[in-house]
């Protein structure tokens, strides 16, 4: 018996703790302040980089606190979890009261309360009571969803209201926060994020996961049929486009072009254009010019395949291809590296940068080499994601926008028109309240009263 009591007390204390708005403010501020850390310290870099940048002591200290992946650290997750519990408990705590108020059959009004309001207008009229009653009823019904008239000792009262349901807006905002956190949780448990590079013409059926670096097999195959890149005149990239085919169980399923901002979605898996690169060319056509005679001849070759030079000078072989090549501190970009082997045993390295065709001219050799043509093949870099939580998150987005709009810009307005007969005249009072935007309600009451006075 005693034990049960104790746990009940403990539970009610816990409930109280989580029902407090003070806790909300503390949690929101803590989230704001701690989130700053992760923007100052780059996240998810390699341990070696951190060690180098922060030294041993801070490296160990930050590692212990998970600062290098802080948004997924236990303590940040605890803050989010507490916020979730806080918002649920707090909302449940108030919901029953609000619910009763919103779904009441016959709303209660109290004239004396309206009389005490500061937001009140009064005027007198010479019209007969019955006349006013019909006119005012009409006016109230035009502006308010609910209205009713009541007989009083000296006259009548009209009560009107609208937007009672808007009191639920704040609960939908809080619901949306829960949906977002829930969607994020679903995504982190059941989703994955990875990448894959596919050469033109190649087919793959697995990707590499970003977090762990492990291989992840897909239920289907992706083939890259084509990749192209276009540039603006300024040299800035204009468009990256990959043509992808999906193949399942050896059967072709579909073919689609993807560009940045327009991914391919198949079976819950999304393929995004992320980056691209050049593959080492296979077919190369060399231009070989004799300095003495100016004679030019062309030779087709492949990497590693020696070319017999005319007049028995020797052989030339293209050894290597580099995406960037540094020559005396200048980056020559895409470059072939070849070796000229002379009959006399002399051999010399020759650079053939694709962007500087006459580069070899500077060597002042008797033969000038350059690249006339080569097949350029690309690989496309795809970001591959799967996130079953997205739908929940998106519904959270929609609910949040609607909820905020209702909460901020709509209100529960209550209005009372009291008409009393005093001698041959009638005295009219118009008073109103709203649960939000009290300044706005003042204007509404004023305008409504002026309208009534004109009737």
């Amino acid at each position, binding site marked *: 018996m005693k034990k049960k009591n104790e746990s009940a007390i403990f539970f009610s204390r816990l409930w109280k703790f989580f029902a407090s*708005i*003070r806790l*909300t*403010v503390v949690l*929101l*501020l803590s*989230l*704001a302040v701690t*989130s*700053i850390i*992760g*923007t*100052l310290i*780059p*996240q998810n870099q390699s341990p070696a980089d951190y060690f180098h940048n922060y030294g041993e002591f801070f490296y160990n200290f930050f590692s212990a606190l998970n600062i290098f992946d802080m*948004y997924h650290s236990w303590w940040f997750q605890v803050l989010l979890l507490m916020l979730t519990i806080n918002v649920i408990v707090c909302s449940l705590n108030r919901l029953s009261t609000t619910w009763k108020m919103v779904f009441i059959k016959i709303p209660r009004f109290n004239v004396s309360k309206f009389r005490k309001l500061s937001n009140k207008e009064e005027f007198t009229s010479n019209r007969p009571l019955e006349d006013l009653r019909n006119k005012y009823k009409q006016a109230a019904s035009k502006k308010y969803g609910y209205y009713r008239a009541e007989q009083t000792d000296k006259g009548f009262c009209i009560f009107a209201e609208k937007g009672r349901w808007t009191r639920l807006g704040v609960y939908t905002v809080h619901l949306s926060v829960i949906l977002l956190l829930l969607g*994020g949780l679903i995504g982190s448990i059941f989703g994955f*994020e990875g990448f894959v590079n596919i050469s033109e013409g190649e087919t793959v059926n697995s990707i590499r996961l970003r977090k762990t670096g492990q291989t992840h097999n897909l239920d289907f195959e992706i083939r890259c049929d084509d990749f192209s890149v276009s540039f*603006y005149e*300024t040299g*800035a*990239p*204009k*468009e*990256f486009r990959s043509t992808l085919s999906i193949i399942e169980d050896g059967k072709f399923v579909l073919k689609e072009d993807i*560009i*940045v*901002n*327009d*991914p391919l979605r198949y079976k819950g898996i*999304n393929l*995004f*254009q*992320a980056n691209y690169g050049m593959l080492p060319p296979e077919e190369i056509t060399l231009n070989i010019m004799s300095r003495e005679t100016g004679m030019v001849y062309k030779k087709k070759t492949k990497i590693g395949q020696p070319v017999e030079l005319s007049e028995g000078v020797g052989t030339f072989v293209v050894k290597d291809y580099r995406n960037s090549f540094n020559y005396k501190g200048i980056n020559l970009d895409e470059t072939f590296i070849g070796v000229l082997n002379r009959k006399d045993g002399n051999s010399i390295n020759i650079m053939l940068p694709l962007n500087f065709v006459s580069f070899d001219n500077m060597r002042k050799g008797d033969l000038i080499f350059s690249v006339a043509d080569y097949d350029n093949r690309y690989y496309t870099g795809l*970001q*591959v*994601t799967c*996130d079953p939580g*997205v739908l929940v*998150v*998106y519904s959270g*987005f929609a609910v*949040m*926008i609607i909820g*905020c*709009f209702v909460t*901020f*810009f709509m209100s529960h307005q209550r209005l009372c028109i009291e008409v009393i007969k005093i001698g041959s005249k009638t005295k009219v009072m118009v008073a109103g309240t709203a649960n939000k*935007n*009290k*300044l706005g309600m003042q204007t509404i009451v004023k305008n409504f009263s002026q309208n009534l006075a004109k009737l």
Partner: protein
Amino acid sequence: MNSSNLLSVVTFVYGFAAILYIAAWIFKKTFPGLLATWTALLGAVGNAAGIIMRWVESYTLGIGHAPLSNMYESLVFFSCTIVVIYLVIERTYKNRIIGAFVMPLVFLAIAYASLSPNINDRIQPLIPALKSNWLIAHVVTCFLGYAAFAIAFGISLMYLLARRKKKGKGYLLSQFPGPAFLDNLTHQMVTFGFLFLSIGIITGAVWANSAWGSYWSWDPKETWSLITWFIYATLLHARLMRGWNGKRVAYVSIIGFMAVLFTYFGVNLLPGLHSYG
């Protein structure tokens, strides 16, 4: 005249309007106030015209896109939204002193865009990542939010000044609107800003998801917009707490605007995906 020249002229128009608002406040005269309103309106019209011209110019250059793609363009849009929202407030509440606190901010924003050597005012082609209809929705909603927060910031400053009136007498403060009015107006601006900041973050998330497959990646700019959002959520709740009077709420509003500024300018010093404001 091209759009950049027009917008440079607008910068001076706004500067003049700011001086007029301050003069109207200090000298308690109606005429400079009236002139200030018309100058601000003229500035807003020129500002909007500049934005539209720039849009057209980008099409004549063959790289047509909405003028919301870099720091310069977003600052120009930012100043235009602040002025429009401010003028609506001025008309609604028939009060020009707020202008003395808001118009200098507008002037600073557009002057920084037009005159700072760090900011490029050339029309540039869109890089592939920015080619999306979400760009417009995202930038417009974010900047509506930021504009509202900027005005809330100005009004919060006034609130703190007005509160001091009780102790000193202050000739300058004598015509201030009452603290309750200012507090209410701050709250209105913050709610407006909060709604649009929320939509801005949401459109950004949806865009990120359609461009590179994850709606949230804790990129510094994203994170800072979330920090800003947390701060204003704190403000909305702090008002409901007993003991938190308008003064503390005004401080939170000022801190919130500092976070906005950092999200906007400071984050560019940190590494991340966003290439513009």
